[in-house]
């Protein structure tokens, strides 16, 4: 794929030696953070703080502090949940799927992308919890033996599937991330001067010594995890889509939702990864590692998924009108022309039209332009979830219960807070572990150069 597009460019620019790679990638960890980092941390930390205040207020006062009503039972909460789960999809996808397909250009991206997955899933996980009327009873979602005669849970509920899917996804992603991190932690352990930091790296690197016996097993395990994570990625967003697809509500009750959701998730996730990588490479000076070929490859990915998403929009409309289900047809007319029609058109523009700019080389070669497109895609994908959730709910079967939905400040701050959490976590991540998988880059570079050096 991508390598076929750009055959002659090296994976990593500047013919690095392994020692150089270790040194350059781990360099930011040894230094004191610069002023930009502190500024960004202050901004994202403040956003996180505001979000925590908003969540605290909501937990203390009640869900009524959100703009929901008896007709629109989910609004910003589940929109944000699906949005963040979607963002969280690219990380594992880049890591696992590209690993299986032996796309070695992934090595520059996979660590940060996986971390992003974890942080995004953390952000996503907040919403199912706080959207509950009584979040302190959230543990009732888990089937444990109890004194209620052992009253179990309803395994028929998509929310239970969600609970299992999201927690499995988080666990497997975290394990996958950590397993990939072990050799690098050992590298750091061996590069760091004795002290607290070194002891921490030493503790976390589990006694890794680079033994080839371990590498041998490691490769098998990593491949297996990648193989497990790939269907997991698909299943998680499929299950998230069943929250809607198994409901009776027109606009939700469609079989297209699972592929549509998975594709949309990859689309938004890739955009977010690309946006973050553009920022990171600028901020941490990793231009040799994250090159134009990576941006190009990601752009093709985004273009492709954008096409699929656009196709899904058209298919949805076609199905709604072709089947002759009047409720379904109404919902789609209402989405486009009803009182919340603006959100539909934002969605179509940002997801369908704006990404088409990436066809142009001139756009792809301007990081700022690519960055703008990725942000537009993320806005569009947020609105896609808003459109699916709110416009389907607000006018359903009985006209008597039609209502509108106006988010409150508390909801806005909560959403802001998750962005704060995401970026705070990402900034701290940049300071604690290598943002690029050192061992993998070395392997890729050696494999590339190895043709001459007599690999095999």
């Amino acid at each position, binding site marked *: 794929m991508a390598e076929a597009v750009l055959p002659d460019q090296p994976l990593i620019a500047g013919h690095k030696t392994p020692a150089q790679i270790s040194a350059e990638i781990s360099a930011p960890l040894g230094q004191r953070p610069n002023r930009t980092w502190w500024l960004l941390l202050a901004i994202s930390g403040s956003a996180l703080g505001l979000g925590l205040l908003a969540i605290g*207020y909501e937990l203390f*006062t*009640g*869900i*009524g*502090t959100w*703009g*929901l*009503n*008896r*007709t629109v*039972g*989910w609004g910003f909460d589940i929109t944000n949940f699906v949005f963040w789960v979607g963002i969280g999809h690219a990380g594992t996808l880049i890591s696992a799927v590209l690993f299986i397909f032996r796309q070695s250009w992934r090595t520059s991206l996979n660590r940060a992308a996986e971390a992003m997955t974890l942080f995004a899933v953390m952000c996503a996980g907040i919403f*199912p919890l706080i*959207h*509950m*009327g*009584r*979040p302190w*009873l959230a543990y*009732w*979602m888990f089937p444990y033996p109890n004194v209620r005669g052992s*009253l*179990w*849970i*309803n395994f*028929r*509920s*998509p*929310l*239970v599937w969600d*609970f299992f899917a999201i927690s499995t996804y988080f666990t497997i992603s975290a394990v996958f991330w950590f397993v990939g991190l072990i050799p690098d932690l050992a590298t750091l352990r061996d590069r760091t001067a004795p002290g607290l930091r070194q002891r921490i790296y030493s503790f976390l690197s589990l006694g890794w010594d680079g033994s080839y016996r371990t590498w041998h097993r490691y490769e098998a395990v990593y491949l297996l995890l990648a193989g497990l994570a790939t269907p997991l990625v698909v299943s998680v967003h499929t299950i998230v889509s069943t*929250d809607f697809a*198994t*409901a*009776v*509500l027109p606009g939700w009750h469609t079989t297209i939702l699972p592929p549509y959701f998975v594709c949309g998730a990859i689309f938004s996730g890739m955009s977010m990864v690309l946006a973050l990588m553009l920022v990171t490479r600028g901020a941490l000076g990793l231009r040799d590692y994250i090159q134009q070929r990576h941006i190009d490859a990601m752009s093709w990915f985004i273009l492709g998924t954008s096409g699929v998403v656009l196709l899904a929009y058209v298919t949805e409309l076609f199905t709604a*009108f072709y089947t*002759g*289900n*009047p409720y379904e*047809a*109404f919902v789609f*007319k*209402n989405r486009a*022309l*009803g009182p919340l029609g603006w959100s539909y058109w934002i969605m179509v523009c940002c997801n369908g039209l704006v990404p088409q700019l990436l066809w142009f080389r001139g756009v792809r070669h301007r990081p700022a332009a690519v960055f703008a497109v990725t942000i537009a895609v993320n806005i569009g994908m947020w609105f896609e979830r808003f459109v699916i959730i709110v416009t389907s*709910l607000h*006018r*359903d*079967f*009985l*006209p*008597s*219960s*039609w*209502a509108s939905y106006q988010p*409150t*400040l*508390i909801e806005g701050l909560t959403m802001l807070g998750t962005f704060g959490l995401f970026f705070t976590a990402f900034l701290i991540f940049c300071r604690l572990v290598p943002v690029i998988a050192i061992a993998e880059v070395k392997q890729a570079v050696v494999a590339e150069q190895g043709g001459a050096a007599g690999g095999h």
Partner: protein
Amino acid sequence: MSHDSQPHDHGTPEPLPRRDFLKVAGFSTAAGLALAGCGRQRTAGEPALPYAEQPEGVIGGRPVWYASTCAGCGERCGLLAKCVDGRPIKLEGNPAHPLNRGRLCAVGQAQVLGVYDSQRLAQPQIGGQAASWEQVDQTVLGALTAARDQRRAVRLLTDTRSGPTSRWAMQQFCAAWGDCQVIVSDALSHSAVGEAHLQTHGVRAWPRLHLARATVVVGVESDFLGSGVAPVEQAADWSRARDLAAPDGRYLYHFQAEARLSLTGAKADQRLPLRPGAAAAWLQDLLNRVARRLGAAQQEATPKPDPRLDELADRLVQARSSSVVLCGLNDLTCQLLANGLNLLLGSYGSLLDLNQSSFQRLTDDAAVVALREELAAGQVGVLLLAGVNPLADLPDGAAWDKLLRAVPLTVQIGERVDETSAACRVLAPEPHFLEAWGDAEPVNGVVSVQQPVIQPRTAARSLVESLSVWSNRPQGGEALVQTAWQAAVWSRRTTDQGWPAFWDQALANGCVEVRPVALPSSVPQALNVAPPPVDTAPLELVLYAKVGQLDGRHAWNPWLQELPDPISKVSWDNYAALAPETAAELHLLEGDEVELTAGGARLKLPVLLQTGQAPGTVAVALGYGRAASRRFAAIGPRWIGAHPSVNDQGLVGGNAAPLRRWADGRLLDWAPVTLQATGRRLELARAQTQESQVLPAHLAPAGDPRREIVQATTLAAFRHNPQAGAEPLHHGPSELWGREHTYPGHRWTMVIDLNACTGCSACVLACQVENNIPVVGRDEVRRRREMHWLRLDRYLDPTSAGLDVAFQPMLCHHCDNAPCEVVCPVLATVHSAEGLNQQVYNRCVGTRYCANNCPYKVRRFNWFNYPHDDPDAELVLNPDVTVRTRGVMEKCTFCVQRLEAAKAEAARTGQPLRDADVQPACAQSCPAGAIWFGDRNDPNSAVARALADPRRYRVLEELGVEPAVNYLRVVRNAPAAAEESHHG
């Protein structure tokens, strides 16, 4: 106590010394005191206080029913008060009462809350200072003596109090003090009806309407099903007159001419928008046409042909002696024309009963005007005001303020401090009607006992007791009632019962039927009247009473404030309703605040667009802007985004009474008006914003412009094919899953006859009282978060020939394939073996997924904790129903607490449970009898029979959710012209 009150003849008939119970702190062993909410765990250590002395017949937790009489409005329905552990917690109609026959309206249902209102006047006051009754009596008796000595008049201004005891006590009082008169003034006056009958029949009387026998009824601005004189009785009669299975094939045709869309107009087969100023001319025209057809033409000129009016005249004449014209305007000309029509049509004696005439609204406007003149002339020495609020209700309220202050002594007898209180020197608190002895005679010959069911919670004294003291013949309430009854009721008995037996039976039944008092009358004769020229003001104001608020005397009641008006679906406010075309002409949008000016008075209100209203009219509800609504300043949840339920003046709505006017000694509720936009915008709290099942044109799918949520047909089509109007399913339900579940025992089912439902909202309130449903306040309703488990959907069809309006009680459908159940992660809502969709509050974690997935949107979420605004009001909670805390979903349970109690009682007695033994609150209360509930597995049950009705359908049948709630199609007796164009 020689004789005490008796429970209604449900259980033990022995006398019960009930008053002792308050000597102890209450029977808190009742585990059901579900005050604390479901999230909290009780800790051991709370003491349980049993009685010290066991009252006979009282069993903790077991309800006792007492028969009494409602005083919520003038209709005076008989009721049964359900008392648990000494607390009345629910009012239901008394089945033995001949007027309301077991049913009760929303206002009546809401009265029980008044018992626990902590803001009632608790103690007498003199000049604003708390005083004792001795001081009050001294002051009043002193002033009365002084008035007699100075030859000044004593006047008692009261609302309609028709009970024999009141009459007797007033007679005693008047006899004691020389120039003493009783003047009856109701805020909603029907004075002209009495005056018209004085002219045509020689008796100032208000005929009782027997609508059940009617074939054609014409209403002219007459809201007899809504805020009229006896809506509970009329709603039942109206639906009986529209019985499709009537053996003689008779089916009521209802024509309504009115300015605003009233509840009655909503149910009419044909509606004519008519400004009140044009009503007299229209009635005259109709009279001419009818007279011509009957050969009694009063004038030569041939009326212009008008197919609609001619058809109406034809129908009226065809149905002679079973047709009637009802006029609701307090205007003598209109009433005389209506009487003329009814005399021509032979309605008197068949539909209009002057023998058993109505004593429900005996207002005498002329006497009020005369009183005002007397007051102005300084002739009145003592003025007693009972149950009236002239400062708030009369257009010249400000003038009354000065007049009252000038009287040497004004005494206000009432339950609460109101606008008039400040102008009165003595405030004499009156008990709640459930706390005091009394009676009522709503129609001549039907006497109803008002029996106390709880010890007074305040130091109040009823009007009759006070009058007995002030007549120098002090007597207790019970003794007064017995004395009056021996004199005025027992003497009219139709049996030969002795007094004790008569009294005991009256107490147990709640009412007795006796010989009507004969009223002197003359041979009826129609009068020739010339209608006044049609008022040509560009805009005409129509003032009316809302179904839930009436004249505003219940403005303190949060349940009624929150009850959405069934027509506009607005709660917590009044507004200036305009026809959409009129608003467009005036460049006004919904929510624009306007200033109305009529006769020098001004009022600022937001605009509401009301389809169906006569163009060129502005309709404003009376009864708002009351001082009693100040208490709602802090109702509802408190958070940073909350808005108060009251307006800038600290009141709910604006008082429109200053816009009323006096004309020819009568209180008129219409006037020319001008509108001026103020530039402000206000959002009304509307529980339903999409008013039609016809979809917006630009969003409707091709070929499906409407949703057949309420299905309707015409009478002719129904006679031709009883299944006419059935909407073919868009697609048959498909089954992914097999069916494993059977319902071998009971299987609870409901059938709602939309044809009978009048939209009166009694069910909504009954449900609220029975199920501890909180009041959430204006802001929450505005945010579409009202908690009513049973809501009343209202659909207008602007595309229909007239204006088809339909009401649809919408509650949990208890679907067999419930979409809500499948999605709940924690099994908090699951199906019972009897077909109920159960909601377990304490298991609910509040994901709201169930509500999203409910096609009927009948699930209600506790967005906040919604405590009672008045802590005392917690005493009205039903101990059998859990109080829900925040974060929990709730919904209609089919009153499962009643089902379970009935099953337990059946187990106790060993009798099988029949569906007649148990009714949910909504079905029990419905005045029109539109709701059947029961066990469909019992082939003999009423509900099983109703299920076989060819009109039966289920809403959203094609979803395959198998709802347990069924509806019966509306059958409109469409006029011939509309018949062809009707979509059915």
